[in-house]
């Protein structure tokens, strides 16, 4: 029983992880999509500046181009960074291939859409450049050639960082804020197979009424490899479906920025996970412990032994390690003699996340993708076994 619960938790974690990883880059991509004000600026022959929300003239652009040139002076340093990043990305790809051999969805998916080819023909400058938020400019931007040099390095670094920065930009928490609604409304459609779930229209008000709708809307904008569209889509539906139906501060989702903030945290967790992976791959002593390797009780004991939490078992810092993992089931129910609680899940149901799943989601970055996906497959196998029980 514990195995089943554990793998299910892992599967849920996987869903969230993939969801975050794919959503976030999708939102990052939104930065590059010419938004309405940007289009207006373009119509006037000027450039939209996301930081000020104003249209810039050629003279102002010249000044910015100089700044961009300064950025280009750092190119050498950026090249070094890129070399490192490419090595890391190569390791990630190898790791993904290993995991692909297990026949499950792999981190290839989160990374693939998040690292658009740096050689893209459009001369768009990404505001998601790590540490150097730039202007959103249109394709007519004359000074863009000066700034493109600085972008590839950032593009090819660990994508989670890009995504996190982009998310901050989207929500105005970073230095250059792009209106969320404008960014989201113009996203191109994705290719996920979301089953018969109704994808909500983008609200004319510019704001979604529920995190679930927002999540589903974003899911409809995500593109992945065709052979994974069904699997990833299913995970998205599961992930989004478990989100609360309305923006309510008590659920941890008071607004779209809250949702984005959760995803933001996840991206950082994701980055950490990748980092662990590199360590592992480089042959360092593997001293990190992931939530999918321990029960909740074991994780708690490890966490208690070192509250600095080097294994990042308590991603959300609430003092509970790996809270999505099952506690020792036997001890929970062996002594319980009361009536079963609540309704009976005798429909085509999956175990729902609690409405306030923000805390649970925060632990997502801890789950090793390989473990989560592999176990998800096992989970399906277990379903065939009448001796095991699932919700």
């Amino acid at each position, binding site marked *: 029983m514990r195995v089943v*619960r554990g793998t299910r938790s892992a599967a849920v974690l996987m869903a969230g992880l993939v969801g975050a990883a794919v959503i976030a880059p999708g939102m990052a991509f939104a930065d590059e999509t010419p938004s309405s004000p940007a289009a207006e600026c373009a119509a006037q022959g000027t450039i939209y500046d996301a930081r000020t929300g104003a249209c810039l003239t050629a003279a102002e652009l010249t000044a910015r181009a100089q700044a961009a040139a300064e950025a280009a002076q750092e190119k050498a340093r950026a090249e070094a960074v890129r070399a490192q990043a490419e090595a890391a990305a190569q390791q990630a790809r190898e790791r993904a291939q290993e995991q692909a051999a297990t026949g499950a969805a792999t981190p290839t998916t989160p990374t693939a859409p998040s690292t658009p080819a740096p050689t893209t023909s459009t001369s768009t400058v990404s505001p998601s450049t790590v540490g150097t938020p730039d202007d959103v400019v249109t394709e007519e931007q004359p000074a863009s050639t000066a700034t493109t040099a600085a972008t590839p390095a950032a593009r090819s670094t660990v994508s989670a960082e890009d995504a996190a920065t982009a998310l901050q930009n989207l929500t105005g928490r970073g230095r250059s804020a792009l209106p969320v609604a404008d960014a989201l409304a113009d996203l191109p459609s994705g290719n996920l197979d979301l089953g*018969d*779930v*109704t994808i909500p229209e983008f609200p004319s008000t510019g704001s979604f009424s529920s995190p*679930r709708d927002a999540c*589903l809307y974003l899911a409809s904008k995500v593109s992945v490899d065709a052979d994974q569209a069904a699997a990833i889509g299913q995970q998205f*539906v*599961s992930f*989004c*479906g*478990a989100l609360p*139906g309305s923006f309510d501060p008590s659920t941890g989702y008071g607004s779209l920025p809250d949702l984005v903030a959760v995803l933001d945290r996840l991206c950082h967790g994701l980055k950490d996970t990748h980092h662990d992976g590199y360590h592992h791959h480089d042959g360092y002593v593997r001293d990190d412990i992931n939530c999918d390797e321990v029960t909740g009780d074991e994780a708690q004991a490890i966490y208690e032994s070192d509250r600095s939490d080097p294994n990042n078992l308590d991603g959300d810092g609430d003092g509970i390690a790996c809270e999505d993992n*099952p*506690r020792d*089931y036997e001890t*929970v*129910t062996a002594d*319980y*003699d*009361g*009536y*079963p*609680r*609540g*309704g*009976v*899940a*005798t*429909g*085509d*149901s*999956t175990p*729902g996340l609690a409405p306030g799943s923000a805390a649970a989601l925060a632990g997502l970055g801890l789950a090793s993708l390989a473990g989560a996906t592999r176990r998800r497959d096992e989970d399906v196998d*277990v*379903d*065939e*076994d*009448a001796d*095991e*029980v*699932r*919700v």
Partner: protein
Amino acid sequence: MTRTRSTLLVWVLAIVAAVVVLAALTSGPGSARTGTSTVSVPAGAAGEPLPLAASAPTGIEIPAIGLTRDAVMKLGYNEDLSLQVPPDAATVGWFARGAAPGTNGPAVFASHVDYHGAEGGFAHLSDLRAGDQILVHRADGSSVMFVVDRVDQASKQAFPTAQVYGPTGDAQIRLITCGGEFDAATRNYEDNVIVFGHAERAWR
């Protein structure tokens, strides 16, 4: 003119008759039933006084919805202390930490209404009517015949826990499955369908 009118009348009557026949043919066994569904007591069976001593169920028959199972799995609690449910569509489970069928108290059975696209064991549970009979076979070789008292539908958010699991002065039965609106987003039904019944007789 008269001839035309009578021809029209014949056509109308024929159409009405056809509709009636069609309705009778297409309506399910539940809604078209007039009487209640009974189980047959094997000849020569020795009656047993209720309540019985505890013994686990090994099979269940509900002729009214065409259900026959010669195995019943035991259910416990989920980690959140909710009732476990069978891992597949067809299996019927019995809450083993509650009353055994035939003993005083409610014997609780659960099965899916549907599961992963397959029709569940209790898919037609809501078609049961008061008076329908349910037969439960037990490990000690005895059988208990229950009679349906009522069929309820309750929100999972306001599940009638005490009514379903609470103590009773006689041997009773509860059959639980899902019902109501299906929330595609959470892949959950909003309600539970609950059949309440009492043991009428037992034999071995």
